[in-house]
């Protein structure tokens, strides 16, 4: 809510700066006195957590780049050196590698939060689209970063993903050679991937700036999906949400640290500790866990071009989601039917991740008894994934009868008992 500014510079220096570069005012209005719905739950802390994740990746990445050598003959050895010889190299590398997974864990919770509470609907369409752009950039950064250690998974992952572009009619071949800078993934490719891996996080930081800007125009959505009406509905961001976010970040970092110190490689693949070999593909190549659902969608189609189109379509459909969902009600708390389709969608995404990790011909546990393999399983879930966006959400808006919604956020929280304006921030 970009209402009138409440910043009141107290000292001479602040007043001097304020009339030249009102940067303190910007920070104050955005993160101190910013009116925030008073019913935000812990699903709303992931924005702050994601900001921390990005900062961690940039910080650890910059120091890793001081020791990493982007050359096919030295890359693998330089990673081993970081792990074994560089002071605290093992720690910094583990934080960066685990950090990528934690980043995706947080972004998925953040996205599903938005899907459940209808945060993509008017007036937050641009905010949502910027979020999808960030997600795309994150996938690019993670893919490029995963190539850098130049292990077997790095090399073959890079090969498979770049060859996806070869499916494009006519220009596919030239595009893949352009991406490689040669006739296969090689040294030139590794070099440019390093350059781009360094660049993209800073692009992400830029888009995050726009994302927060787009958030602060309409303000936060909230679990009721009802718009803020009076100041009774809000609390100042500081100290209420700085403390809530801070607590969530602390809990998140405990889990993060548990992975870093006790199971740094559990989310990765042992094959990536074998140096890249262009002559031998590992028997079972799969992407990192956070990309598995898309991998399953890619394999669901027996046709090369069709698979690629569907995989990119799975993300593309998120861009137009604000216009696909026809219901006027934002939060699924008040959408008795949509709520269950949402649960189905969540299960479909998890199931796609599972299907992506298995060989297509393997039988699904239990269901295998009736001849269902992971290929078929993945196909059914892919169908549901697309149906959710293209059929279910558009139709539900017309056929569903929403539950009665509270008159205001305040009424939802206090049953309308808070007569006085929201209490002043605690001392």
């Amino acid at each position, binding site marked *: 809510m970009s209402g009138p500014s409440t910043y009141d510079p107290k000292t001479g220096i602040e007043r001097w700066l304020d009339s030249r570069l009102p940067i303190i005012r910007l920070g104050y209005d955005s993160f101190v006195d910013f009116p925030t719905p008073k019913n935000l739950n812990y699903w709303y802390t992931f924005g702050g957590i994601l900001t921390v994740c990005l900062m961690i990746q940039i910080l650890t990445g910059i120091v890793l780049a001081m020791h990493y050598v982007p050359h096919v003959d030295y890359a693998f050895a330089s990673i081993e050196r970081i792990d074994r010889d560089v002071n605290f190299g093992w720690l910094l590398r583990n934080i960066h590698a685990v950090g990528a997974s934690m980043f995706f864990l947080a972004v998925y919770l953040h996205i599903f939060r938005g899907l459940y509470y209808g945060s993509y609907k008017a007036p937050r369409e641009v905010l949502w689209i910027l979020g999808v752009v960030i997600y795309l950039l994150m996938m690019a950064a993670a893919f490029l970063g995963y190539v850098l250690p130049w292990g077997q998974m790095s090399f073959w992952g890079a090969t498979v993903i770049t060859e996806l572009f070869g499916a494009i009619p006519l220009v596919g071949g030239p595009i893949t*050679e*352009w991406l490689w800078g040669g006739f*296969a993934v090689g040294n030139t490719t590794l070099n*440019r991937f390093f350059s781009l891996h360094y660049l993209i996080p800073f692009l992400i930081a830029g888009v995050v700036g726009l994302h927060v800007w787009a958030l602060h125009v309409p303000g936060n959505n909230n679990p009721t999906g009802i718009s803020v009406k009076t100041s009774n509905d809000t609390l100042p961001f500081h100290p209420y949400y700085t403390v809530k976010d801070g607590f969530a970040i602390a809990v998140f970092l405990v889990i993060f640290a548990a992975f870093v110190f006790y199971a740094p490689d559990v989310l990765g693949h042992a094959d990536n500790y074998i140096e890249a070999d*262009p002559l*031998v*593909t590992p028997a079972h190549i799969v992407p990192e866990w956070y990309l598995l659902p898309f991998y399953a969608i890619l394999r669901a189609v027996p046709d090369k071009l069709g698979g690629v189109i569907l995989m990119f379509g799975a993300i593309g459909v998120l861009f137009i989601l604000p216009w696909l969902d026809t219901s006027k009600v934002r939060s699924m708390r008040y959408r008795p039917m949509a709520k269950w389709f949402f649960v189905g969608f969540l299960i479909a995404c998890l199931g796609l991740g599972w299907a992506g990790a298995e060989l*297509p011909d393997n039988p699904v546990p239990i269901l295998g008894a009736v001849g269902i393999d992971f290929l078929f399983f993945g196909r059914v879930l892919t169908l549901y994934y697309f149906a959710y966006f293209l059929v279910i959400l558009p139709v539900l808006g017309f056929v569903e009868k929403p539950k009665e919604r509270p008159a205001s956020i305040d009424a939802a929280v206090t049953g309308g008992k808070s007569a006085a304006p929201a209490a002043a921030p605690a001392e």
Partner: protein
Amino acid sequence: MTDETQAVDGGEETTRRDFIYIAAGGTAAIGGALTLWPFIDQMNPAADTLAEASTEVNLAALDEGVGITVMFRSRPHFVRRRTAAEVEAAAEADVNRLPDSNARNVNIGDGELATVDNRSALTAAVADGVTVDEAFARTILVSGANCTHLGCVPTEGAGEYDAWFCPCHGSHYDTAGRIRRGPAPENLPIPPMTFTAPTTLVLG
């Protein structure tokens, strides 16, 4: 321009200023587009990468039923001396009913049928003064080793045809390197090749 000329123009007709606007804008747009090109093209294969290389394979070192993988133009290639049984197994398939019935062999014209002979070293050029045993050449299969789906190297001696199976997304190739089942769209490509001696094959 002075106020006077503007008054005369009345802001309606085409003026010299309009012309300059369009000319300057057009030049900037074209110049910008042209400047962009070096930044895009630098990513294409460099001159040294393009320099064509050739790879020599000594077939005499291969026993029957043995295959090796060699690098040719920065890509792995299969070279396999097949057993008679393997050649026969491939010959049994109905060429017209294959997922890809094109030979994919640059040594013969595009669009030739993917028969066992059309995909074997029988199609290789032969250097002057060299005689090659045809029965031998027929057993030799040289093909690109990157799955035509998304580029993985299929595992030898595996899959439904006991030839090549791609672990990445489950493509099955037969003993003639032809795609039989799975997401790969094309047969493994046959590179340009020449016999420079009865048992020496040069790729390139």
